[in-house]
């Protein structure tokens, strides 16, 4: 990783003069990392540049852009984060003209940690590290292979663990709404723990992540109840790809399918009655 770190530092140094800041990770007190906005005024901070653990940098970008919509920034992003940025762009949440993407390719152990199918960037013009192949997702495969009663029991237990911290929503780069349906008691019962099964919170959230989840797995990582929620998102993402030929973050101009009229063959693939 030292190699990537040095290259990344150099790349950032090159980019810094042309932007108002570069968003990347920095090691802080007690060795704890956090996203940081490096600036040319304090380039010495690059000594503390970090790569891992991965942090939700696009989420920080979102916060900065709300106050400074026209800021000219650069961001260090991994494959998933780049997809997240593309989706944010498609949802009119940022202007790509003002944003320099520095792609950071993941290494094998990192990809395996995230069970990531696409641990590489595709849109970034500047990249650091060598892209590697995606890795399989044994957890998702294992859960999908369960029988219906097994799934029912499994998810009941997982949902029972949920402490409703909203962390998965808070940390998600794709959750940028001003208000959230998950905070509306019309959909999610308030003040109850454990939440009644099946969890409205997780079901509604899974629906909202349809054609949106970029598989960064930040939600699973922050979850104090260790719920493998990305499994749902990944299975649905596969279905959406198969039914409607759509992949979040893959292309800059493809519109989310559920907004549009049926295309040739889509109805047949949807499994609805003829």
């Amino acid at each position, binding site marked *: 990783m030292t190699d990537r770190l040095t290259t990344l530092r150099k790349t950032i140094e090159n980019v810094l003069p042309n932007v108002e800041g570069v968003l990347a990770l920095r090691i802080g007190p007690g060795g704890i990392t956090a996203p940081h906005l490096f600036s040319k005024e304090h380039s010495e901070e690059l000594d503390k540049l970090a790569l891992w653990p991965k942090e939700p940098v696009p989420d920080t970008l979102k916060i900065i852009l709300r106050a400074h919509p026209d800021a000219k920034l650069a961001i260090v992003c991994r494959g998933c984060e780049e997809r997240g940025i593309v989706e944010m762009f498609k*949802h009119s949440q940022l202007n790509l003209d003002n944003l320099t993407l520095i792609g950071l390719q993941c290494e094998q152990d990192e990809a395996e940690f995230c069970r990531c199918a696409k641990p590489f960037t595709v849109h970034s013009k500047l990249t650091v590290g060598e892209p590697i192949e995606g890795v399989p997702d044994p957890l998702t495969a294992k859960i999908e292979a369960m029988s219906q009663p097994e799934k029912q029991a499994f998810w009941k237990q997982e949902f029972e663990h949920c402490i409703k911290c909203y962390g998965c929503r808070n940390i998600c780069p794709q959750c*940028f*709404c*001003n*208000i959230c349906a998950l905070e509306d008691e*019309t959909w999610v019962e308030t003040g109850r723990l454990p939440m009644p099964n099946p969890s409205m919170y997780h079901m509604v959230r899974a629906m909202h992540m349809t054609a949106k989840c970029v598989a960064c797995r930040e939600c699973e990582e922050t979850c104090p109840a260790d719920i493998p929620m990305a499994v749902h998102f990944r299975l649905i993402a596969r279905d959406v790809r198969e039914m409607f030929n759509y992949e979040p973050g893959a292309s800059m101009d493809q519109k989310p399918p559920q*907004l*549009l009229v049926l295309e040739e063959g889509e109805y047949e693939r949807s499994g609805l009655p003829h």
Partner: protein
Amino acid sequence: MKSKKKPQERVGVYICHCGSNIAGVVNVEDVSTWAGKELEKEGVVVARDYKFMCSSLGQELIEKDIKEQGLTRVVVAACSPHLHEPTFRNACSRAGVNPYLFEMTNIREQDSWVTTDKLEATKKAKSLVSAAVGRVVYQKPLESLFVPIDPNVLVVGGGVTGIQAALEIANSGQHVYLVEREPSIGGHMAQFDKTFPTLDCSACILTPKMFDAGNHKNITMLTWSEVEKVEGYIGNFTVTIRKRARFIEESLCTGCGVCWEKCPKKVVDDVFEAGLGYRKAVYTPFPQAVPKYPVIDHENCTYFQKGTCKACEKFCPTGAIKFDQQDEILTVKVGNIILATGYDLFDARKIPNYGYGRLPNVFTSLEFERMTNAAGPTMGKVVLRDGVTQPKSVAVIHCVGSRDKNYHNYCSSICCMQSLKFAHLVKEKTGGDVYQFYIDMRTPGKSYDEFYQKIIHEGVNMIRGKVAEIIEGEGGLIVQAEDTLVGKQRRIPVDMVILSAGLESRADAKEVAQKFGISCSADDWFIERHPKLDPVATMTDGVFVAGACQGPKDIPASVAQGAAAAARVLSIIGQGEIEIEAATAMVDEITCVGCKQCVASCPYQAIQFLEEKGKAYVQEALCKGCGTCVGTCLPKSITLKHFTDEQIVAEMIGAMRVMKSFEMTEVA
């Protein structure tokens, strides 16, 4: 955060007996007592049942309660809201309660009529009432939006119905675009010789109307044209019309007829002449065609196919032939649309037993109509397929394709009378024997049965029975049928058979319905708003149907509908402006995050994106209130008025609460 406090409202609940329609199955007294007691916590202060809520006394009951009991919400449990929602909304309005604070629940079509068990039906009624009460307290008063009505009208179809509608409107001073697919207006009626029961000359009564329509200053005639696209809504439709190239410059053409005289190419005319006669490659379908301009039939014209000829161009005295003419796309703005697209004749080939297409002397009704027409291919002579032999005996077969579960279940309504007319014409023109094979005789119109009696006296043989088969034999045809009156098989030899084919919806009726945003029945007839009370309107405001496109009809009924549709349109035009859907979508600008997803999801492009604010905005006049955007908006910043999440959820909870409580009492 939205305020989730349950509103405190005073709700009145009214349960209709509908005579015994509801009360015969649902214990309405029980429902109203129950609602008064059990739904008190939900805000119900009055609950009553009454014989006929829709009667003026029923309505007065509600109005009185509103005033005396200070009701702020009203629920009526009765028939389908499609029937009486407007009635009760008006009653509420009169008593000072906004019509959108009324909710109707359907315990007739969706309960008493479909449930056998009385107890179950009563339970279901309670559940539905509870759902309506749950919802109504969350309803908000809405004010309708008014938009001006474009006084221009589009009439689609130039048959007698369309002509009638167009003339009615044009005579009242409004402008009409009359679109006809064929080169001339006139429709089926122009093909007939005589009309039942009066035996008037069809052409004599139709052509003056055609002429009027063709020359009316308020009618823009667009023949040889089709509607391609319809956008907008009542009062403000934008219609795109393709005017196909005639290859004739209309402003130069005098209709002198030299072109079709000189045209060397003869074509079998299977549209107007039903295949019995010929026309040229440049032609008008019939002499009295309106407009008078011919068309060049691109597919059969020698010049278009082989590149040489141009005989018509050579001889045309005014130089009106234009081989390079292109289709024209017109866009017209209208406020209302009348569809009078008519019917297709049932294709008798589909019944192989009757041998049409295989046995030369089996004719269809339309062929016979053309044959008896003095201007037709046989100059009015009734002859066999050889064109010379007069038949000595003729069988007329009713219900061909109608009242037959293999083809159409419905009665085509005109065939009995048409067949009797044929019998009369055969007798008159040949003096031969006529055999009528019928299932039932249906003669319910004015002077119709008298006509039937008259035909019987003319000596026509009436055989009640469905024809099983027509076969060749004994130098002619043999009709096999069971005579159900005498209960015996009969084989009757005849020279000629006329199949009285039924009417069916146009082959492209579905496509047309889609284009105009209306719906079709199972047989593809256009569906009217209400079969009894609103027979010419459709569920789409501003689109009306008239004539046989809505179902089989004879000429008087078609003409009546044409006039009726015209009257409806004129009444709308007379209002000057029209109330449009109040239940439109609305964006909460504070919570909208500007992700533009709704913009893409709207079927009507009614959602605009305000770049400056970074927010979505619904253009109310374009919004039709489907609510698709609501399902798309993740933060729920869009609400559909009158169908808010809060209201739907409250309705669902109301229904569920009662179902659950029954479950509990049953267990206990």
